[in-house]
């Protein structure tokens, strides 16, 4: 469960996120949309603890991310928009490294890693250094690492950027499975189709403010008010 209360993030005088309030209940798949520079990544970075809010509070599964960062981080998984990995480590070493950070013991890791490798079709690449990986393979390893500790919440930033259709399909299926298991997911994306396909609720952020937030069913009604496409609705609500 994620809860943002009156969250503002300023860089100098510029407010990247402006008094944002949002609640994502347990088990919900939330799609976070918005034009470039709207404040999606900034919001996500505040949730995962990479940024500190200028004002307001962020809680993840009941833990304040500023006052109880370790407890909050223990319950969530983060997949960044750019899957930067330690170049000189192999994929397998990276998975063990991340597993260790979440205090997972060796025997658990040994049982959890092989199914993930199979699911993400990583194959022989697992023992090669990540500096050799393509964008898609990096993304697969990053998502596999995020699933290692079976967190309650997954935060995923632009998961489809630069992926080939095969990788995109694997990622989509994985998120679908995780959502059906009751994991709450916050996914930022530019792909309206994917948001419509996967998410229970969709929020649109523009200039740091939440300008639209509704369930998939209500979204349909809103679309029908215009020409029936999500694209028109998106352009309508983000047209200032």
């Amino acid at each position, binding site marked *: 469960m994620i809860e943002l209360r009156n969250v503002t993030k300023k860089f*100098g005088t510029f407010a990247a996120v402006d008094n944002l309030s949002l609640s994502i209940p347990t088990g919900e798949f939330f799609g976070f949309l918005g034009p470039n520079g709207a404040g999606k990544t900034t919001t996500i*970075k505040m949730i*995962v*603890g*990479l*940024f*500190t809010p200028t004002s307001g509070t962020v809680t993840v599964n009941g833990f304040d991310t500023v006052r109880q*960062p*370790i*407890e909050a*981080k*223990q319950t969530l998984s*983060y997949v*960044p928009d*750019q899957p*930067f*990995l*330690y*170049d*000189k*480590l*192999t994929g*397998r*070493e990276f998975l*063990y*490294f*991340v*597993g*260790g*950070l*979440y*205090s*997972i*013991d*060796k025997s658990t890791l*040994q049982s959890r890693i092989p199914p993930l490798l199979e699911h993400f079709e990583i194959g022989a690449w*697992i*023992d*090669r*250094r990540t*500096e*050799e990986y393509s964008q898609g393979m990096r993304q697969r390893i990053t998502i596999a*690492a995020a699933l290692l500790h079976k967190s309650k919440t997954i935060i995923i930033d632009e998961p489809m950027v630069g992926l080939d259709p095969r990788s995109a399909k694997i990622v989509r299926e994985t998120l679908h499975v995780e959502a059906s298991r009751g994991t709450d997911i916050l996914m930022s994306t530019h792909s309206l189709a994917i948001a419509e396909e996967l998410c229970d609720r969709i929020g649109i952020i523009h200039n740091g403010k939440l300008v639209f937030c509704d369930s998939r069913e209500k979204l349909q009604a809103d679309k029908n008010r215009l020409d029936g496409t999500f694209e028109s609705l998106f352009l309508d609500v983000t047209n200032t």
Partner: protein
Amino acid sequence: MYLLFHIFLYKFKASLKSVFDVRSVSVVRSVGSFLFYCGFVWGVYVSTRNITIYVLHQTQIGLYLYHRFLEMILFIFFIAVNLGNIIVSYSTLYKSPEVAYLMTKPLPSVSLFVIKFFDNFFYSSTTLLFISFAALLGYGSCFEYPWYLSVAIMVFVLMPYMFLAACLAAIILLGIMRVAGTIGFRKIMGLLCLIYFGFLVLFFSFSNPVLLIEQASRFYPNVDRYFAQLPIGAYQYLPNHWVAEFFFSMTRKDYTAALCSETLLLAVTAALFALTLMAAKRLYFKTWLISLQIQSNRMSEKDGGRIRLFDFRKESFLSPKIESLVKKDFFLFFREPSQWIHLLVLLTIAGTFILSLTNMNLNIRIESMQFFTYLILFAFSGFMIASLALRFMYPMCELEGKQFWSIRSAPVILEQWFALKFILGFLLVLTLTELITWAMNIPFLRYNPRGELLSWFGIYAGFWLATAMSALNLGFGAFFAEYTEKNPIRAASSQGATLTFLSSLLYLFVFLAIVLLPLSNYFQSLFHFTKFARESIIVPGTAVAVLSMLAGVWGWHVGLRSLKRDFLN
């Protein structure tokens, strides 16, 4: 040529933007850096002036001998510029993404080489340029040179001298890369280390400072008469000799001889630059392709599914978090050639230093000489430790890079992570520090069997030096970290690194000032067989501990605060 100027213009514009960055953090940093630089430059100026006056008027070693020592310092300076340029230019010329980008443009490879060569020269030599200019002003003030003469000497003598070292570095690097394509990079690096080591041994065999003092002392106090006795050595063909000769001729107002040395230096520099361009025209693009090949060969070395030493799959007595972080750092360090090669080079230098210390002949029955030798050796050891901490501890945070998100977003307590980094680096620095201080005491104890207090001083001082310098370097490394530099050598030669090094030297200077008097008293008591009041070291000993703790805590605090900032990458 037009393209060359076009690129230079845009690089200049980009650098101006960073110089005139008006963000408050940048302004504070820039002003701080400027003030610190000014302070340091002032310190170099005053020290050079005082040392020159002391050596020429108090000890009266004479102008000739003074300039022979200057020649040796200039040789070390040449090697420092040369080595610095070789190491940094490998990254600038071969690993820079800018080069890879510009290689796709219709630009002759030699033009690209020229851009990166100058880029590299000014990047790796800026601090040395400042320091040498301050030293020159200090030296010039002793001989009543007007300031503009010092500026002219800087531009027409010292800068060409440094440029010569940089040209030689570029030629050596092009040669290395060409040969590396045939026999492999590791072998060529080993060979280069051996050649450099051999060259250093050869130079100091030809111009041994101890031998020089012994021979010249026979004529004391008229040491300039030694001049007439001196045979002409092979070192007259080295550029440091021409520069030293230039200075010597200027002090004697023999302007014709000075002009001869200057002309020789400029001619050789111009010739070597032309040779560098010719070599670059022939080899740069070819060697750039070789560097790509080497990098891809290294990448395709499969690390394999087999379980190796320190493998992540192996059980460990450490907690999973600590184990993960330690193993990650271990693999990243030993899989990056610039890390382990540099460590090997520094360990070789430290080993040579330790060996020469243990075999040092200190049979000098002059009380002040033994004390000064001890002080100089201690200062030099401190300098080595500062360099070691700068090279290996300063870049630790920066090298986490953009991948740092994986640690920052994980349930890792930053204080613990920072402490772990500190311990890993500190163990290396402390071990080497204690070894050096132990070795340093051996020759003194040989001639002063009653001087067991020196051993305790070595252990005590070594501990505090290692602690303070490790914390300062790690902390300042975190403070200046932007998580974008992948090359540890470039990270350790950035502006932040320079400021950190100067801070370490300032700390060392205060440290030395505190221990100066008690050490001097101790040596006096050893020479005159008088009793040394051990209580008199309590106050300076405590002062040293307090100073080191303050420096360490400052570095720690600054670093940890910076780590908690937003991770913008």
